[in-house]
C-alpha cells in the first residue's frame, strides 16, 4: 500500500473533493483524500442544495457568480456521466419592512457590478408570475435571480470525486483520521484507522470536525456547529408559474427557506433560534410544527402535502460567518479550510480554485490571506449582510 503522497486531504465533503479535483487539474495528482464515512456523509449531504448569487458583499457575489458558471457545466467540467439534478429555477427574496427593502436595493447594485442578473419584482402583481400561490401580506418588495437554483449536493460531490479520481487522485472512504502528525513545526502526515500516511502538505477540510483536529497541533479555530433542520415532502406537480418547479423563497426576517426540487418534492429549512452549540443531527417535533406553520403562512397551498422525511445538519459557523482558509504557523504545511457557515456548497467550485492556485503558486485576483483565522484577532472581519 502506498503510504507517501504530495498532498493529503482530510474530509470527503464538497470542499475536500473540489480541492482535490482542482489540484489534480493543475498537475498535482499525487493526492490522497481521506473520508471517515462515505463521500458527502457529513454536512454536505445534509444541506438543502440551494445556491444563490444574491448576496450583499462583493466577495460573496464574486465567489457565487464564478461558482455558478461551473455548476452550469458540471458534467463537462468533471467528466461525470450520471445526472447531477441541476436546475436554475431562481431565488425569490421577499423583503419585509422598509429597512430590509433598502438593503436589498443596495445588494442589487453590488450584484449588478459582478454581472449577476438579479432584479426587483413588484409584490402587488408580478410576484404571481413566479409563485402563483404566495401570500404577500407584509411584503414591501422582492428581488429575483433566475440563474439561482438547486443542485443535488451528493451527486455534485460524487461528480468532483469522480473527476479527481480520473486524474489519479486516490479517494479512501471509511478511513478516519485519528491524529495529525507534526514534528519540528512542520506537518508530516496523518494517523488513520488504516495506518499512517505521510505528506508534506495536509489540508484539513473536515468542516465541523476540523477544529478538533487542528487543535492537536495547537491551531485554535473559532468554528462552532449550529443545528439547522430540514424536511422534505412527497413529490408533487410543479408548483411554480407556467409548469415550472417552485423557485426558492427565502425570508431572512423569519429565517425560513423553501423550494421545490427538480423531481417535485418540496424542501423546507428553518434557521433555529437560541440553538445550543452541539453536533445534533436529530429533529424536534417543535421544529416540525413551527416550520409547517411558518410555511403555510407563506404558502397556504402546501397544507395538503405530506411530509416524508426530516433531518438535521450543522452549519459550521465562524464569528463573522465567513470561511477560514488558514495556513498554519504551528505546523507548516497544514492548511485549515473550514467554517463555511452554511455556504460551502455554493462557493466550493471557486474556493477550490483559490486554494489550488495558492498551493500551486499560481496568481489569483482574490487575496487568500484575508480568510486567515488571524482576522479574528486583528478585527478585519468579513461581514455578509444577507444571511439566513
Amino acid at each position, binding site marked *: 500500500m502506498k503510504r507517501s503522497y504530495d498532498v493529503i486531504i482530510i474530509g470527503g465533503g464538497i470542499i475536500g473533493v473540489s480541492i482535490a479535483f482542482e489540484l489534480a487539474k493543475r498537475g498535482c495528482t499525487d493526492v490522497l483524500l481521506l473520508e471517515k464515512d*462515505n*463521500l*458527502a*456523509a457529513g454536512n454536505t*449531504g445534509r444541506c438543502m442544495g440551494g445556491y444563490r448569487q444574491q448576496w450583499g458583499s462583493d466577495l460573496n457575489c464574486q465567489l457565487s457568480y464564478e461558482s455558478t458558471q461551473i455548476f452550469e457545466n458540471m458534467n463537462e467540467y468533471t467528466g461525470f456521466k*450520471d445526472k447531477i439534478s441541476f436546475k436554475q429555477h431562481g431565488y425569490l427574496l421577499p423583503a419585509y419592512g422598509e429597512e430590509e427593502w433598502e438593503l436589498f436595493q443596495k445588494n442589487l447594485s453590488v450584484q449588478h457590478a459582478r454581472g449577476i442578473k438579479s432584479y426587483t419584482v413588484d409584490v402587488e402583481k408580478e410576484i404571481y408570475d413566479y409563485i402563483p400561490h404566495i401570500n404577500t401580506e407584509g411584503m414591501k418588495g422582492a428581488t429575483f435571480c433566475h440563474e439561482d437554483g438547486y443542485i443535488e449536493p*451528493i*451527486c455534485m460531490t*460524487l461528480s468532483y470525486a469522480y473527476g479527481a479520481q480520473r486524474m489519479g487522485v486516490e479517494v479512501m*472512504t*471509511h478511513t478516519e483520521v485519528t491524529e495529525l502528525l507534526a514534528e519540528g513545526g512542520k506537518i508530516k502526515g496523518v494517523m488513520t484507522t488504516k495506518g499512517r500516511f505521510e505528506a508534506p502538505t495536509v489540508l484539513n477540510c473536515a468542516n465541523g470536525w476540523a477544529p478538533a483536529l487542528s487543535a492537536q497541533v495547537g491551531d485554535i479555530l473559532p468554528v462552532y456547529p449550529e443545528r439547522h433542520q430540514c424536511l422534505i*415532502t*412527497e413529490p408533487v406537480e410543479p408548483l411554480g408559474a407556467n409548469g415550472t418547479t417552485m423557485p426558492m423563497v427565502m425570508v431572512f426576517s423569519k429565517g425560513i427557506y423553501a423550494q421545490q426540487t427538480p423531481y417535485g418534492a418540496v424542501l423546507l429549512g428553518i434557521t433555529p*433560534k437560541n440553538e445550543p452549540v452541539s453536533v445534533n443531527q436529530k*429533529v424536534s*417535533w417543535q421544529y*416540525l*410544527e*413551527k*416550520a*409547517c*406553520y411558518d*410555511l*403555510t403562512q407563506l404558502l397556504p397551498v*402546501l*397544507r*395538503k*402535502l*405530506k*411530509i*416524508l*422525511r*426530516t*433531518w438535521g445538519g450543522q452549519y459550521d459557523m465562524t464569528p463573522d460567518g465567513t470561511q477560514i482558509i488558514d495556513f498554519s504557523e504551528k505546523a507548516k504545511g497544514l492548511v485549515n479550510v473550514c467554517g463555511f457557515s452554511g455556504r460551502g456548497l455554493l462557493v466550493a467550485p471557486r474556493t477550490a480554485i483559490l486554494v489550488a492556485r495558492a498551493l500551486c503558486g499560481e496568481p489569483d485576483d482574490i487575496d487568500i490571506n484575508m480568510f486567515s483565522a488571524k482576522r479574528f484577532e486583528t478585527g478585519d472581519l468579513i461581514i455578509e449582510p444577507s444571511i439566513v
Partner: protein
Amino acid sequence: MSENKVMTFIDPYEDVVLEDVQHAMDMGFVTLTEIKNFTRAGMGIDEGRMSVDLVVEELAKYYKVSAAKVMKPSFRPPLEPVSVGILADAHKKWLAEGGRD
C-alpha cells in the same frame, strides 16, 4: 433498450431498477446509504419499506457476505407521511394557548 429486456424494479416509487443498483456497486459504493444517495432507492413515499431489503440482498450478493452483515438504516420521524396542515395547526393551537416561538 431492447424490447425483450426485463426490468426488475427495486424501488417502484423512484423508478430505480436492478441495473441502477448494480451500476452503483460497480462504482465502488459499499453501504446502503451510499446506494440510496446515488440511486434514490428508498427515498420514495414508502421511505424504503419496499427497497431496503432488496438493496441489502444485492449488496450481500455482490460483496459475498451474509445479508445479516449489511447495516440497515434507522427510521426517523415521521414514521408515516403526515400532512403539513396537521402539524401547522398544532403550532397554531400552541400559539393560541399562549406558547411562544
